[in-house]
């Protein structure tokens, strides 16, 4: 019904458009005449509203305004593109300068920190840089070299702290070379074990890889707060040092460790268990052991083996 009514209305509108009058149209649809008549009258009124065309002046004015607006937009667009390009260039330049600054200041900082000792402000930078270096080495051989350098660096730092008489907290890895009562020799460093030192549950025998955490003392010893047993492959330092190097580490094994005077010949000096072991393993140790000659020169009395006749200070007995 409504569809037919809509169609009838459309038919009549088209007829009126062609010049027909309302009543003539309605004669075609007598059943809809009542509904359609007011609508067609309203359509006539709607058609009567003027729809004026623009004058040429209006057309020209509007055209000029629109093209002017388009030109402004183009200019703005070009300016924006230039701004974007300049902004991108500026950002890249700033990023580059920041990168250069960070690189220069970073390398300067790292260089400055290379001589830092435990307790110094730059020491954390040094340790961080070491960690970074290590994490960037993937070749196992090269990695071992770097680990060796780092462990050696720890020992050198302790040597410098001893030389300066500074008391600082240190941590280093090494081999337990000997132990005499409360004094252990770990990779050439004399470590004092106190009643408060935390020791591992397992027995720590000479030859074991250990980590020592403690405080350097003016007496050129490290007073241990913690002794941690490490797996044998955790330490890359050689198990014993070359004797030629002992002069350099004079402070690492102070004369205080030697219970007798160095001049006192073999019989007087204490013999370290390590030395005893080394003497026994002389053939197999590949030249890594201390030689007898170094005894009096270095003052590291506990490094020497003078025949191993006195083993009364063996680990077992100390324990």
């Amino acid at each position: 019904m409504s569809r037919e009514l809509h169609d009838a209305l459309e038919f009549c509108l088209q007829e009126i458009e062609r010049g027909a009058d309302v009543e003539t149209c309605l004669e075609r649809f007598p059943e809809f005449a009542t509904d359609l008549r007011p609508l067609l009258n309203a359509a006539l009124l709607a058609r009567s509203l003027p729809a004026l065309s623009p004058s040429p002046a209006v057309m020209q004015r509007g055209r000029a305004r629109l093209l002017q607006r388009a030109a402004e937009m183009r200019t703005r667009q070009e300016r924006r593109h230039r701004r974007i390009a300049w902004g991108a260039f500026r950002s890249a330049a700033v990023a580059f300068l920041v990168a250069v600054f960070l690189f220069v200041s970073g390398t300067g900082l790292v260089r400055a920190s290379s001589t830092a000792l435990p307790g110094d402000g730059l020491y954390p930078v040094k340790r961080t840089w070491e960690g970074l270096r290590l994490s960037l080495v993937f070749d196992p051989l090269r990695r071992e070299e770097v680990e060796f350098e780092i462990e050696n660096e720890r020992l050198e730092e302790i040597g410098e702290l001893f030389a300066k008489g500074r008391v600082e907290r240190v941590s280093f890895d090494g081999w337990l070379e000997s132990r005499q009562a409360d004094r252990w020799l770990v990779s050439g460093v004399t470590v004092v074990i106190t009643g408060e030192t935390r020791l591992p549950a397992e027995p720590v025998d000479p030859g074991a890889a250990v980590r020592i955490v403690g405080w350097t003392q003016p007496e050129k010893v490290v007073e241990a707060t913690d002794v941690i047993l490490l797996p044998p492959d955790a330490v890359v330092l050689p198990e014993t040092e070359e004797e030629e190097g002992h002069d350099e580490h004079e402070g690492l094994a102070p004369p205080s460790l030697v219970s007798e005077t160095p001049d006192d010949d073999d019989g007087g000096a204490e013999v370290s268990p390590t030395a005893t072991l080394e003497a026994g393993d002389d053939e197999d140790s590949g030249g890594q052991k201390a030689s007898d000659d170094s005894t009096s020169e270095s003052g590291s009395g506990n490094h020497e083996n003078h025949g191993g006749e006195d083993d009364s200070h063996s680990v077992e007995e100390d324990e």
Partner: protein
Amino acid sequence: MPAYTSSQERRELEGLRNLDPQVIGAIYDRYFSAVYRYVFYRLGDEMMAEDIAGETFVRLLEAVRKQRAPRSNVRGWLFSTASHLVNDHLRRAYRRPEETLTETMGDGDPSPAEVFDERERLRFVRAALSELTPEQQHVLALRFGQGYSLQETAAVMNKKVNAVKALQFRALAALQRKIGEVKRE
């Protein structure tokens, strides 16, 4: 209006995106008169027709710049935008009733009484028209202001022919009612 293929339209839209003055000029020449007539039909005010028709084309440029340009049916987009601008204007006019819509008389040299009567008649019709929904006003302006056929109106409005038939039916019924109400007032 000359035959206008979709490929031509696509080329013109591409030119619009580049703000090509030639393309902008061509589109303006093709559609400005129709848009102006549409606005004038609904408002009966030459100045407003010029302003709103001009603003419609500026909106087209801005839409292109913001990547919101019509992908086809530029004519439909222009009429739709003009319709929105007219609706906005009418809303503002209702809020400020002291602003009266001007009316332009047809040709001839009518007497003052005839001028008055004609003005009153047009005022009634336009007042009634402005009471319709925007869509109803839009369909009547296209059909009776622009003289578009049912099919053309459907194309401009992006609707089906039957939907436009139904819409114009409702619009004329509403206009007839509103004219009665306006006259009674």
